[in-house]
């Protein structure tokens, strides 16, 4: 290849990199893993903006953003982690009514899930009182919002102390589901978004924990302040809060906020 050809190729590569908009990078809580991909695809089809999500426990994502992870938008499974970023001056909710409060985009639902081939194929609150229940999986109450909700629900039922020796703690809500789906735990308090995945729908059934037993799992979004694509992030937030997408969230196990 001649020298001028090389230069030409290099120039073409450089130009295409400039023209193509960089995909939005989203830090998303684990409970969104079954929900978000089709929504992001629709967003791409509607607006032409590509968005890629990374799924982790909200606490992990918060630490990563605190340390400069290159995300544009953070979709947490609670309000306290995104609030922590706002207070640190690393994120904001500019454009919403109150720019110092995370934007609630959905509410989570806690369910009790068991496998159909287990000793407890029909989960209900009575199961939590059953002494034959040997292992109950929950997500880590310190770092996972659904884990906090699980402990709150068990405390409301005055069962937490008696059940605690039988509780096994998973790092996040997906892992809590794996503990039960692999048959190692008898039942699990997991997110409805996990329970509604094809895999868990096929292997088990769930019971919705009454909402009055735990504080609402409000899921908050914040814009990572150093983003270079604020306009695109706002488009995605508007899309998330649009009636069509909110209705879709309801079908995937989240409660819409609009």
């Amino acid at each position: 290849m001649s020298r001028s050809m090389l230069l030409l190729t290099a120039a073409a590569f450089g130009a295409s990199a400039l023209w193509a908009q960089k995909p939005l990078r989203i830090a998303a809580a684990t409970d969104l893993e079954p929900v978000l991909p089709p929504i992001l695809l629709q967003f791409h089809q509607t607006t032409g903006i590509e968005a890629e999500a990374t799924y982790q426990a909200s606490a992990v994502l918060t630490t990563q953003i605190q340390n400069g992870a290159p995300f544009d938008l953070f979709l947490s499974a609670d309000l306290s982690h995104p609030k922590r970023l706002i207070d640190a001056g690393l994120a904001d909710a500019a454009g919403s009514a109150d720019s110092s409060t995370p934007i609630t985009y959905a509410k989570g639902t806690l369910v009790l899930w068991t496998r159909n081939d287990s000793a407890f194929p029909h989960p209900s609150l009575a199961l939590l009182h059953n002494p034959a229940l040997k292992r109950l999986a929950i997500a880590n109450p310190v770092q996972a919002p659904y884990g906090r909700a699980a402990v709150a629900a068990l405390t409301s039922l005055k069962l937490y102390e008696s059940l605690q020796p039988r509780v096994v703690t998973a790092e996040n809500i997906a892992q809590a589901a794996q503990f039960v789906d692999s048959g190692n735990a008898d039942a699990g308090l997991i997110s409805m978004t996990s329970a509604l995945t094809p895999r868990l729908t096929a292997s088990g059934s769930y019971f919705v924990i009454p909402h009055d037993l735990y504080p609402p799992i409000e899921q908050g979004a914040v814009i990572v302040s150093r983003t270079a694509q604020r306009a695109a992030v706002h488009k995605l937030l508007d899309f998330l809060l649009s009636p069509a997408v909110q209705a879709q969230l309801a079908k995937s196990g989240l409660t819409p906020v609009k």
Partner: protein
Amino acid sequence: MDWQALTLTLRLASITTVVLLAIAVPLATLLVLGRSRWLAFLEAIATLPLVLPPTVLGFFLLVLLGPRTGFGRAITAMLGHPLAFSFSGLVVGSVIYSLPFAVQPLVAGFSAVDQPLIDAARLLGAGSARLVLTLLIPLARRSLVAAAILTFLHTVGEFGVVLMLGGDIPGATRTLSILLYNQVENFDYAAAGRTAAILLALSIAALAAIYAGSRRRGGRHA
């Protein structure tokens, strides 16, 4: 400082080291002295735990040891409880996870023993057990020490497998690395720093003591 997590971790690492050496010495002997061509395959399998991400290895063990496999059901019936979420489950997971760290130094050490010495011992009528105990181990003592140290430390620092297989039960499966992770996740960086500092200080002290002893005995040349 959570001393329960520390003692639990030390107990797990000690038991794992003893169990693993009992498995790795015969295995390494077979790999070095054996003639079957299948041994290359066996050595490859013994190295595999290095390839899988630890949480994935932990997930497979969770499924394998759980009540949905015949193997898991047999173990549950034998012990009276499932292996997952128990201390013995962590021992099983750690033995598999650290297997390459015990086998590799031993294979290297045993391979370095002069073949004429081995042949002479065989000619004099030494069986395999005697060969190992009176020739290979004394000559490859440093490799044995290295295998033990690597296994012990690798188990102390083990995280992914314990995370998956343990269920974070204080006193049973909450090891120091899990505790450290929880502290970091909880933004309790001061506590995490203290825990990590104690862990590092203990490790440096123990390692320096072992290496100093090894130097005094002239172990460098063995």
